C-alpha cells in the first residue's frame, strides 16, 4: 500500500486532497439531491401509499395519471401556478431595480449612513415566514370574531385619511397611458411592502458591486463632461451588469421558494397525503422555474459587459 502511495505524483496528491475537501458535500449532493430528484420523478409516476406501521411506503405505477389529474381535474393548481409565475414576473424587475437604486443611495457618504444601512438590512431578519404565518392566522381570527366591527371602523377611518388613488389613476388614464402599464404601476405601488422586504440581500450584493468599481472611471467620465445620468448608464450600469444576473437568479429562487405553489404542494402532501400529486406539483413548478431562470439569464447574459 505504501509503495503505491509513493508512486502518486504531486499533482495527483493535490487532486486527491481536493476531493477530500469536497467529499462531505459530494456525498450529500448525491444522497440528498440527485437521489431525491430521481425519487421525486418516480413518485410523480406512481401512486404512493404510506405504510404507517413500519414507516415504509408502497408504489403502484400509474403512468401519467397524476399529471393528467393535476392539469385537468385539480381545482386550483393551474390558477395558483399561473398567479405565482405572474407575481414573480412582476416582482423580479421591480426588486432588481429598487435594490440597485437603494444601493446607489446607500453607497454615498452622508451623516447617519451606518444607522440607515442597519435599517435597510433589517428585512433579512424580519422576512420570517413564521411571523408572516402567525399574522395571517390572527388576521383570519379577526375576520371571524366580534371585532369585525372594529375592523370596519378602522377601514373607514383610513379611507378618509388616505390619499385618493383612484383619482390619480383616472387622471393618468385620461392622459392616454395604456391600461396595461397602469395596471403594472398600480400593482407595483401596492407591492411596495413586499418589494422592500424582499430586497435586503440584493441591496448588499449591489453595494458590494458598486464598491468594486474603481473611482478613476468616474473621474474620467467627469473630465469628459458626462452628466450624472450619462455616468449611470455608461459606467455604473455596465459595471454592475454581471451582478444583476446574480441578483435576478437569487430573486427568482427566493421568490419561488415562498410562493403559493410551494405551500400547495406541501399541503397536498402532508394534509391530504396525496404524495404523488404533490411530487407532480413540485416537479412542474421546479421545471418552470428552471426554464424561466435559463431564459432570463440567457437574455441578460447576451447584453452583459464583462470588464475582465
Amino acid at each position, binding site marked *: 500500500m505504501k509503495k503505491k502511495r509513493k508512486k502518486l505524483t504531486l499533482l495527483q496528491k493535490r487532486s486527491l486532497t481536493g476531493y477530500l475537501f469536497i467529499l462531505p458535500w459530494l456525498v450529500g449532493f448525491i444522497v440528498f*439531491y440527485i437521489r431525491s430528484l430521481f425519487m421525486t420523478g418516480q413518485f410523480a409516476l406512481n401512486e404512493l401509499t404510506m405504510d404507517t406501521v413500519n414507516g415504509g411506503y408502497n408504489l403502484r405505477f400509474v403512468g401519467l395519471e397524476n399529471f393528467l389529474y393535476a392539469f385537468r381535474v385539480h381545482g386550483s393548481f393551474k390558477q395558483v401556478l399561473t398567479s405565482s409565475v405572474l407575481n414573480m414576473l412582476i416582482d423580479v424587475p421591480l426588486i432588481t431595480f429598487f435594490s440597485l437604486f437603494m444601493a446607489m443611495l446607500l453607497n454615498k457618504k452622508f451623516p447617519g449612513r451606518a444607522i440607515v444601512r442597519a435599517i435597510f438590512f433589517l428585512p433579512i431578519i424580519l422576512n420570517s415566514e413564521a411571523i408572516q404565518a402567525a399574522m395571517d392566522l390572527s388576521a383570519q381570527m379577526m375576520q371571524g370574531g366580534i371585532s369585525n366591527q372594529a375592523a370596519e371602523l378602522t377601514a373607514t377611518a383610513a379611507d378618509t385619511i388616505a390619499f385618493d388613488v383612484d383619482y390619480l389613476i383616472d387622471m393618468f388614464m385620461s392622459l392616454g397611458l395604456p391600461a396595461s402599464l397602469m395596471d403594472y404601476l398600480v400593482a407595483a405601488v401596492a407591492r411596495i411592502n413586499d418589494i422592500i422586504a424582499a430586497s435586503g440581500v440584493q441591496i448588499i450584493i449591489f453595494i458590494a458591486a458598486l464598491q468594486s468599481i474603481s473611482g478613476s472611471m468616474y473621474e474620467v467620465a467627469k473630465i469628459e463632461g458626462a452628466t450624472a445620468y450619462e455616468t449611470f448608464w455608461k459606467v455604473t450600469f455596465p459595471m454592475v451588469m454581471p451582478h444583476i444576473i446574480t441578483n435576478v437568479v437569487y430573486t427568482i429562487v427566493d421568490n419561488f421558494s415562498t410562493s403559493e405553489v410551494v405551500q400547495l404542494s406541501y399541503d397536498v402532501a402532508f394534509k391530504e397525503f396525496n404524495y404523488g400529486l404533490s411530487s407532480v406539483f413540485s416537479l412542474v413548478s421546479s421545471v418552470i422555474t428552471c426554464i424561466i431562470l435559463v431564459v432570463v439569464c440567457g437574455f441578460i447574459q447576451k447584453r452583459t459587459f464583462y470588464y475582465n
Partner: protein
Amino acid sequence: MVKQIAVKDYLAKAKAITQDTDQTRKFFNNVKKILLTLVQIAILVGVSYVILSPIIGFLANSFSSNRDAYNPMVFVLPQYPTLERYSLAILRLDYFPTLVKDLLYTLTVTGVQLLICSMVGYGFARFDFPLKKLLFGCVVVMIVIPSHAIMLPLYLTFRQFDPLGLVSLITGNPINLMGGPIPMYVMSFLGCGLRSGIYIYIFNQFFRGLPKEIEEAALVDGAGVWYTYFRIMLMNAMPSVITVTVLSVVWQFNDTFYAKLFLISDKIVISKALSSLQGNISTLDKILEPTLLELYLDAGIILVLLPIVLIYLLLQRYFIEGVERSGIVG
C-alpha cells in the same frame, strides 16, 4: 424702513444673479443640490419607515392594556402601558428554556455549516481535480433547485433512516429521525443544509481572491494542507466567515420550511411555537377576544425577534464591512 432696505437688498442680489451668467449657474446648481438632497432624505426616511413600521406597530401593541385596545383615540403610544402581555407570552411560549435550546441549535448548525461550506469552498478554489467544473456547476444547481422539489424524498429518507443498511443491520429496523433536530445536523454535515450552496459559493469566491503566496509560504515552512487551511486560510477569510455566520444564524433561526418538514418540536424551534401561541392562550387562559389575542401575539413576535436583532446589531458593522470585502461579488 428696515423692511424696505432688506427688500432692496434682495432685489439687488436677484438682479446680480440674473445678470451675471456665472452667478446664475451657481445659484441654480445650489438649488438643484438642495432639492436632490431633500429628495434623497425623503426616500431614505420613507423606506426606513416602511421597514420599521411593522416593528413599531408590534411594540406599540405589545405594551397596550385592555383599555387601550378598545380606545380608538389611542394611536401608537398606549395610554396605560402594561407588561402583562409579555409576562403571559413568556409563560406560554416557555420562552427562556425554548430560546436557549433554539439558540444552541441554531448556533451549532451554523458552526457545522461554516466548517463544511468553507472546506468545500476552499477545495473548489485551490485544488485542481478532474470534473471540477462539472461539480461546481452542481453547487450552482443546488442553489437554483427549490428545496420543495426534494422535500418528499427527504422526508422519507429521514422517516426511515438507514444509510447503506447499517442501522437495520444493528437494530433490525430503520430508525425514525422525525421530531428532532438530527436530520438538520446530518444535512448540514453533508453540505446540504439550509442554503449551503450560497455559502459554498461565497467562500469559493473569497478563497479564489486570496493570494496564492500565503499558502506557498506556509508550505515552505512545513505546514500541512489541513494546518494551512485551518490556521492560515480560514483566519484570513474572516470577512466571509462573518458574512456567512450572520446569514446562516438569521436564516436558520427564521426557517420554518425544514422545521415543518422534519417535524422539529416547538420546544426547540421558537418560531414554530409562535404560530400556536394564540391558540394556547385562548384555551389555557380563556382569553377569547381576537383583538386582545393579537396583542399577545405581537408581544410574542417581539420576544422572538429580540435575540436575533441583538445578534444582528452586534455583528452588523463587521457584517457590512465583510460583505464589501468578502466574495459575494466575484
